[in-house]
């Protein structure tokens, strides 16, 4: 296969054919049309779901405009996070400095919206014009009495992953600020779920049925005051490990809270996530409840999946998502409905994730890191896939080639986590793969 960008050769491999290790965690090649965004994007997606905080983007208007209410991260209460605030820097601010505007903006917005805390995101030029964002945040904190947290997310300072880290750094300043709280036995935090399409609420229900108390979710349906208490948990359960591992590790170091890496997609991983928590607490009763829950859910789910599996058996899929750990779950979930993964990749996977994929996938599968539209369109054609799982930027590639598509990104409106999520997933895949419209494409 002709690889169009030489520098990327080692970021692509075919199982059973390629001898090299997969290169990953690199900066994107200039001109490659990477599907990744920037540092700011990483911070923005992680912190966005904290619903009672003010999110102020310090920079010219683009960064705020493109991230206004784009995630399906739901809040059961306040909706402040769904407003997009920007200092909207103009030429004179760039010349004379943006600090005065930032200070005024923060004060007026805090006064108007009474947030529980404020996050200030630094964008590219803030790093260049030399605004002291941290100093402004300190000053406004003092004046207003609410915590104002700088997020050092200048777009050029790395990749989306560095943005996750900047977000975790801001979060860790909130965690531990409420020490009065006494956590009940079996308390956990959920890290790395963003309550897309209400998925957190599904998980909460499962854990509650097992007798587990959830102190906070970072950051789905997030609340500032709950995050302050997060250090009282006995366990951190981490999904989307790429984004929240920094915080999990820090909390382990600082507060001695152990963590477990989980995924909530597909039957196997979902069940594993529940069993892991039960075995951590070494409670027979909890384990018993988990077993009962899983078996009750599976008893309903398997027959419900059957009609879809019959129609999808033998079809092939391509998966290209943000984090590779999610890709692992998707490969397993696809198997459950009879489908084989022929192409799998991610924007931000690390070597452990990719090694896991290598173990899991069949020979001939293409594994790719930080891909682009040209490669992806080539791969799906070569492998003759029937379905593409990805986000907004992958959708038109699928449709232009007449393939089914399943949206597994931030803006999805269907819950895909948990057992009911698995059924939704099967339904969506079925609907897209077997639609009669494709017969006009042959």
């Amino acid at each position, binding site marked *: 296969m002709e690889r169009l960008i030489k520098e990327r050769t080692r970021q692509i491999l075919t199982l059973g054919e390629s001898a090299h290790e997969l290169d990953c965690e690199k900066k994107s090649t*200039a*001109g490659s049309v990477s599907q990744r965004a920037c540092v*700011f994007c990483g911070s923005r997606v992680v912190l966005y779901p904290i619903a009672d905080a003010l999110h102020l983007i310090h920079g010219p208007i683009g*960064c705020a405009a493109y991230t206004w209410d784009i995630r399906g991260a739901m809040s059961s209460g306040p909706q402040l996070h769904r407003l997009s605030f*920007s200092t909207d820097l103009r030429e004179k601010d760039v010349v004379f400095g943006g600090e005065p505007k930032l200070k005024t903006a923060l004060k007026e917005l805090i006064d108007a919206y009474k947030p529980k805390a404020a996050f200030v995101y630094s964008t590219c030029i803030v790093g260049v014009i030399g605004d002291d964002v941290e100093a402004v945040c300190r000053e406004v904190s003092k004046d207003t009495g609410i915590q104002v947290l700088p997020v050092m997310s200048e*777009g050029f300072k790395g*990749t989306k992953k560095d943005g996750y880290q900047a977000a975790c750094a801001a979060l860790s300043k909130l965690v531990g600020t409420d020490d009065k709280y006494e956590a009940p036995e079996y308390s956990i935090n959920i890290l790395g779920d963003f309550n897309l399409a209400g998925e957190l609420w599904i998980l909460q229900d499962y854990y509650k049925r097992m007798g587990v108390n959830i102190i906070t979710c970072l950051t789905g349906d997030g609340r500032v005051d709950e995050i302050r208490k997060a250090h009282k948990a006995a366990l951190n359960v981490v999904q989307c490990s790429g984004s929240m591992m920094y915080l999990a590790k820090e909390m382990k170091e600082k507060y001695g809270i152990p963590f477990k890496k989980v995924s909530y997609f597909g039957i196997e991983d979902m069940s594993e996530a529940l069993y892991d928590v039960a075995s951590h607490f070494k409670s027979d009763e909890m384990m018993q409840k988990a077993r009962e829950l899983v078996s009750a859910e599976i008893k309903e789910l398997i027959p419900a999946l059957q009609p879809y599996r019959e129609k999808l058996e033998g079809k092939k899929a391509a998966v290209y998502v943000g984090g590779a750990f999610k890709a692992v779950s998707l490969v397993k979930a696809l198997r459950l409905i009879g489908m084989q993964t022929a192409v799998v990749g991610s924007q931000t996977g690390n070597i452990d994730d990719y090694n896991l994929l290598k173990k899991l996938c069949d020979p001939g599968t293409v594994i790719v890191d930080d891909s682009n539209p040209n490669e992806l369109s080539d791969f799906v054609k070569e492998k003759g896939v029937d379905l593409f799982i990805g986000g907004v930027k992958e959708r038109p590639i699928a449709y232009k080639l007449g393939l089914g598509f399943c949206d597994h990104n931030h803006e999805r409106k269907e819950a895909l986590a948990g057992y009911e999520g698995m059924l939704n997933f099967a339904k969506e895949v079925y609907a897209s793969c077997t639609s009669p419209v494709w017969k006009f494409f042959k």
Partner: protein
Amino acid sequence: MDKLPRLKDIRPFVSTRNACKLCAPLGASVALKGIEGCVPVIHGSQGCATYIRRYMISHYKEPVDIASSNFSEETTIFGGAQNLREALGNVIGQYKPKAVGVATTCLSETIGEDVFHQLAEVRKQTAGEDWPELFTVSTPSYQGTHMDGFHATVLEIVKHFVKDDEKAADRLNIFPGFVSPADIRQLKEIISDYGIKPILIPDFSDALDNPLWDKYYRVPEGGTPLDEICKAGGAVASIELGLFTKVANGGKESGLMHSAASWLESEHNVKNYKSLMPIGVNSSDDFFDNLTRVTGVEMPEKYMKQRGRLLDAYADGHKYVFGKKAVVYGEEDLVLGLCSFLDEIGVEVVIAGTGAYSGRLEEELKKACPNHGENMKVLGDSDFERISDESHKIKPDIIIGNSKGYYIARELKIPIVRVGFPIHDRVGGQRINHLGYAGTQELFDKVVNALLEYKQENSPVGFKYM
């Protein structure tokens, strides 16, 4: 679940709350997509290209490939020439483009990148090789809005490609502004019906609304052919839609403002016929009159009939729209066009909002809206939350604009008619017709029907006749 926050009072804000504008590189990207074989490169962080791709894909439902020179910390300190060179190499290797347009960003502008000279250097190094046309446009997002980026790009395209000695008396330049692919298709048809060949810049009617593909096209087909743009300086005239098309001329000739059409007029003596975006009968008449003036051809019967049908529809629907209060927002030229149309059918535009800050919108609106212009609240340099604050006070009957104002309509429980860009919550945004008698017809039907539907749904009896 709470409602979205809403303040009890209307107060001034220094910050922007829910922007009613986008940044300049987005406008540049849209324009570059309308040039044959052109791939946009955004000179800045990876996120700029990716966010803009996402935003455009969600509207056009098409692949939108935009490359990035992918600045890192080192690039920001030592300059982006090397990154740009690498990006160009990879874009050319992957896409085999006919042209590459490099749009700058707030980042590259702030660190003082001289892309014009960087490209000259690349051209020198690659002389004799089969390299595409390279050009650049300055689009820092702290200057103006996406429309400034759009018009600056069209201007740079014309300045880069137009050749002095090309004569093209059988051609007419059309500068449509930021309209839909469907609008562009209609404009091309209209011009052809006047017996003249359009040089329409930019023409993204195919690239951003492709038909089904038999294979994956790295660079979509269509776009204004490069050898046609070359001839624009020799065309019989230019027709420019919109009054807010001039931008600072590259930033270098200080104080001088130009649009592509005004530049062609001053540098190549191509007379520019300007009109509002032809939405509504009045503005469409002006547009069609200009075509007759330029070509000497009377309005073809097809358009006489379209006009007649539109007026007939005005009669059929006038009562249902009369005196209704509307909120209109978006780009200045779109707002001006829409308000002119709404004014002529008896709708009272109570709020006209835009994120742009030319300072001229109010004056133009008063001129274009003789019936209700005086009472219109014009919000320039504004945002959606301000528009929302004012709307909650005034209690309008209908909202007309892009999909980002849907939440205001939902809160006020009134209908919204989606026009312009972006339409992120519906399919077909790329196929909305806004222009000419035919476009106005569709728009008029939508506005009337939205109001009728509202009345019907809120009627205690659910009537079956109007």
